[in-house]
């Protein structure tokens, strides 16, 4: 029973973590909050679903397709919202309003194209098996979701650490003017960052819709709030913090359902946010962004 709840929390937390890492990456590099991320997540889920349903491709390819499509939507938010606003030197809240407007457009388009009903993956696409382990019944799907999530995180870490693109992204995150001085094509690096961030959101969307068996145009709203919660827990723009914070939030939520029932589940996340902002505004794992809070 305990192990089962632990895995429930871990799989939920793994999806939160993947989503929040994409969110955090953009904040860390560009210092902007991209509020269209929830809608990008929803579009990823739909693309994955359509690929499985209509093209009958296996799940890994569906996740890949969803990641690419969602990544392109991430690029769109940079081209359409953040780049023009940055060129103009607009006030920072303009980026939030603009990206939220983009989210509304994306949600409206999804309603127009896919309808407003909640849909689910066809049964044969799922790994329905369960594993018995120490008397706990674990859904294979949960294990797969955790595995995929960790693969994505490791891939991102490797990209940031060892590739040229990763070095460029980290330089831009450190300082845009320094990056320009050493000849990094900042505009292209920003686009790549938005692509990676969108792709992570799309991947998280597919995992989420597999775990909870539902896809709807409005599924992005609640994950957006979760992503913000995780980002505060981990510290804005802190990627390791987003990973740990995501897992933590998943576990805490499941634990709170067991302890006090599901009514207050979301309150605990936001209560934590308030508590942390008041006591440790740079997140639980504060490193260098002390100056920003």
């Amino acid at each position: 029973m305990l192990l089962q709840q632990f895995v429930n929390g871990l799989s939920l937390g793994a999806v939160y973590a993947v989503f929040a890492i994409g969110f955090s990456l953009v904040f860390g590099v560009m210092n902007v909050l991209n509020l269209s991320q929830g809608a990008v997540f929803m579009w990823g889920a739909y693309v994955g679903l359509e690929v499985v349903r209509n093209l009958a491709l296996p799940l890994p390819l569906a996740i890949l397709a969803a990641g690419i499509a969602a990544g392109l939507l991430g690029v769109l938010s940079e081209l359409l919202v953040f780049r023009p606003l940055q060129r103009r030197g607009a006030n920072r809240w303009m980026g939030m309003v603009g990206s939220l407007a983009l989210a509304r457009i994306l949600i409206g388009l999804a309603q127009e194209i896919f309808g407003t009903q909640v849909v689910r993956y066809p049964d044969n696409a799922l790994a329905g098996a369960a594993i018995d382990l120490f008397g706990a019944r674990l859904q294979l799907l949960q294990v797969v979701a955790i595995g995929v999530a960790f693969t994505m995180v490791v891939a991102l870490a490797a990209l940031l650490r060892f590739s040229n693109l990763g070095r460029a992204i980290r330089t831009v995150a450190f300082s845009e003017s320094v990056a320009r001085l050493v000849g990094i094509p900042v505009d292209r690096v920003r686009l790549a960052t938005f692509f990676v961030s969108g792709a992570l959101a799309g991947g998280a969307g597919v995992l989420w819709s597999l775990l909870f068996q539902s896809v709807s145009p409005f599924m992005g709203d609640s994950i957006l709030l979760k992503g913000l919660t995780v980002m505060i827990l981990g510290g804005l723009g802190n990627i390791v913090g987003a990973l740990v914070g995501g897992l933590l939030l998943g576990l805490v939520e499941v634990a709170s359902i067991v302890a006090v029932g599901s009514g207050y589940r979301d309150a605990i996340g936001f209560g934590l946010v308030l508590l942390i902002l008041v006591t440790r505004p740079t997140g639980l794992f504060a490193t260098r962004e002390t100056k920003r809070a």
Partner: protein
Amino acid sequence: MIDLFEAYHNVIDLCLLNSVLAYGCFLLLGVNLFSLATGGLMAIGAYLSIWLTMQQGWAFAPALLAAAVAASLAALGLGSLVLRLRGDYFTMATLAFTEVVRIIALNWNSVTGGALGIFGIPKLAETWQLALLLVLVIYLVWAVRSSGIGERMRAVAADELAVSTAGYDVAHFKLAIFTVSGAIAGLGGGLAAHLNMFVAPGDFGFLRSFDTVIAPVLGGAWNIAGPVIGATLLTVLPEALRFSAQMREILVGSALLVAVLFLPTGVASLPTVLRRKWSI
């Protein structure tokens, strides 16, 4: 004219109410605070005033006053905790506040009716009251902005550090403005509750807070008419696009995006922008 009013008086009421609420955020934007606490503060005002009129038999006016006082006290408490946070951190903290209040409302069945909400609230708010309140709020905001306080607000917005170095107590100044905006949100919440005859916790969430703060941004965050223009657009546009829920989302989103991208100082600046274009 009377017919027009009869046909659209719901929309007119909502325009007036949303404009009043928008001025609360307008004041905060004036000192560079992007707050998402409006929903939570409205909820406090709304549920308190409903409880007072429906269960305690209070008259509407004292109940509204209590709503405004309670919400401003809540804003005072919240503000003294989170106002020292900068930029996005402040925004996130106010969002967390709104969500916590919403979830408490969702679970506190005896007072809020839980997720189902409260039905049969007496419709006590009248259009003339809303109009009067809006005029009053506009006058007060105008008076504040053209006084020394307004001068100091613009200075804080331009360079907070410089103002505090010059010896002004910026922290308490912001707290005072946050408290005032809380009173406006509480009043708005009480009025909103007695306008629709029905409230549910979902009315006071993230989207409500965002729509309220978007209104002055859309209309013009530095123009006294901005909040009215923005709130009216955001209320009328969805009503006019009733024929299709999907197209409504797409068109409202597009309008907002176009305004953010091409009208940096809001719709209120449109005449100036056009005049400049034509004269050259």
